């Protein structure tokens, strides 16, 4: 029989230690790697101008996401983020699906980041003369180290993210000023911008990777139960995060398209690092390499944080086995969820191809954004302004929700053009999971206890 120190009625919860800076670091940390690599495949799909259009349209999509998210999460401030929102506003089946979207989007992104980090170390080994350098040990080390950090406490985890994300962001600024955009010494946009090589269909196709500039900013909501003041810190961290990303994305596009022809840029692995190499400055090369490594690490770190919170919340409500709803009494983290998701990430990072892993992550994210548009319309309809407390009210409702739905539809089509089979396979997976939940798991759910918000009855009920 196990020894116990429990006093009857004693409770433990996640630790409220985070501020707006940590929320910013969580959101921007997950995303900034998209500026360092990945976004440039949009250039390959439709040329440099198409990538800029995709960058800004995706920017509008994510601004809508950030505004909607800030309002809803400042009210439903609970770990699990959009899962908790869906539970309170739409219903259990939607909540279960949204929880799965979150876990898969972040775990796949974590695996993709670990693969990238392994590749970078392997490349350095190759450049140093070790032709047989392996990536696998570093893939595994990335996942194990970050899981360990997350296990030990959220404050250290997100302070670490704050530092490395800030360095990676500053590196982009340094590169931007170093290429002197006001002189034309390095920048050759006049010669390199060649219109739309694949026409407007190329612009649509570019949307698939245009999302890469911002994918994951909505993850700020997962910190809801660990911030000192959810109503202030979450909207502040999220909105400053999306502003940071809009600036970083536009600067990145400007630097890279002014230095490299679109045919090369469209298939480059590390475009910002390549841009630094073209300046012939060793200091910039080292700085942008560090930026690339740090942004990748920050992204994987934030993904572990977010995926584990979503899994934990579902366990706590018994949407999944209750064991996952446990909190570590010393470190105050969802330790079982963190440990459980380690082998899942390892399997995908070890065996799955990078593009498949990324596509699975993007599609799960897209499903989540589609839900968010519907969710906020239901939220405003059931609980109009003035009926419950809101930390932030987003403007122009329902325009952001409608724009979000339209842009999501266009992006589904863009993904379908390149990865139709994966899109269908993933939908089948979520349908099967939904059937399992509806016919088997739902009987275990705490139906009354799961609704924790002190709200009045919704309008019409």
């Amino acid at each position: 029989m196990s020894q116990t120190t429990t006093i009857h009625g004693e409770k433990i919860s996640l630790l409220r230690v985070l501020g707006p800076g940590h929320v910013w670091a969580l959101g921007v940390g997950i995303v900034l790697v998209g500026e360092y690599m990945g976004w440039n495949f949009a250039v390959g799909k439709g040329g440099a101008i198409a990538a800029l259009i995709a960058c800004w349209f995706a920017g509008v999509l994510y601004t809508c996401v950030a505004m909607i998210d800030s309002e809803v999460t400042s009210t439903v401030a609970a770990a699990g983020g959009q899962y908790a929102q869906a539970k309170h506003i739409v219903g259990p089946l939607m909540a279960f699906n949204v929880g799965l979207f979150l876990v898969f989007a972040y775990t796949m992104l974590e695996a993709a980041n670990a693969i990238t980090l392994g590749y970078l170390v392997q490349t350095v080994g190759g450049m140093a003369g070790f032709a047989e350098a392996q990536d696998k040990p570093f893939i595994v080390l990335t996942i194990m180290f970050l899981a360990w950090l997350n296990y030990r406490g959220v404050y250290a985890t997100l302070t670490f993210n704050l530092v490395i994300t800030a360095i990676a962001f500053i590196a982009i600024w340094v590169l931007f000023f170093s290429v002197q955009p006001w002189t034309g010494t390095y920048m050759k946009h006049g010669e390199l911008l060649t219109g739309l090589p694949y026409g407007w269909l190329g612009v649509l196709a570019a949307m698939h990777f245009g999302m890469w500039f911002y994918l994951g900013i909505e993850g700020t909501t997962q910190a809801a139960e660990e911030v000192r003041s959810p109503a202030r810190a979450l909207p502040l961290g999220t909105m400053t995060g999306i502003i940071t990303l809009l600036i970083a994305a536009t600067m990145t596009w400007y630097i890279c398209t002014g230095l490299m022809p679109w045919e090369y840029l469209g298939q480059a692995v590390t475009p910002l690092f390549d841009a630094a190499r073209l300046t012939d400055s060793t200091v910039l090369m080292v700085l942008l390499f560090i930026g690339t490594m740090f942004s990748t690490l920050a992204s994987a770190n934030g993904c572990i944080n977010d995926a584990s919170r979503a899994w934990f919340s579902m366990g706590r409500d018994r949407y999944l086995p209750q064991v996952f709803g446990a909190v570590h009494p010393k470190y105050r983290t969802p330790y079982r969820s963190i440990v459980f998701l380690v082998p899942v990430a390892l399997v995908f990072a070890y065996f799955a191809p990078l593009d498949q892993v990324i596509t699975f992550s993007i599609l799960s994210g897209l499903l989540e954004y589609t839900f968010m548009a519907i969710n906020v319309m239901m939220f405003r309809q059931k609980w109009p302004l003035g009926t419950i407390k809101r930390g932030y009210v987003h403007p122009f409702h329902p325009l952001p929700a409608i724009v979000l739905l339209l842009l999501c539809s266009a992006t589904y089509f863009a993904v379908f053009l390149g990865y139709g089979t994966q899109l269908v396979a993933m939908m089948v997976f979520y349908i099967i999971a939904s059937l399992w939940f509806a016919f088997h798991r739902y009987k275990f759910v705490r139906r009354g206890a799961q609704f924790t918000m002190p709200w009045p009855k919704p309008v019409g009920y």
Partner: protein
Amino acid sequence: MHNFQLLEYAAWGLSALLGLWMLIDLIRTDRTYSEEMLTSSQEGEIDDTLILDAPHQGGQK
């Protein structure tokens, strides 16, 4: 064996150590505390931290 191979072995070793540390701590924690306490966390408990500002934030006074 060259230097990079040493680095690879170090990465494998460190990964195993970190994994082992988490597993041991998890088992030790599970054996020390009751399941009731470990899973006692509840959603919410944030109401007092929300900002009330009806004119600007759409909330109630």
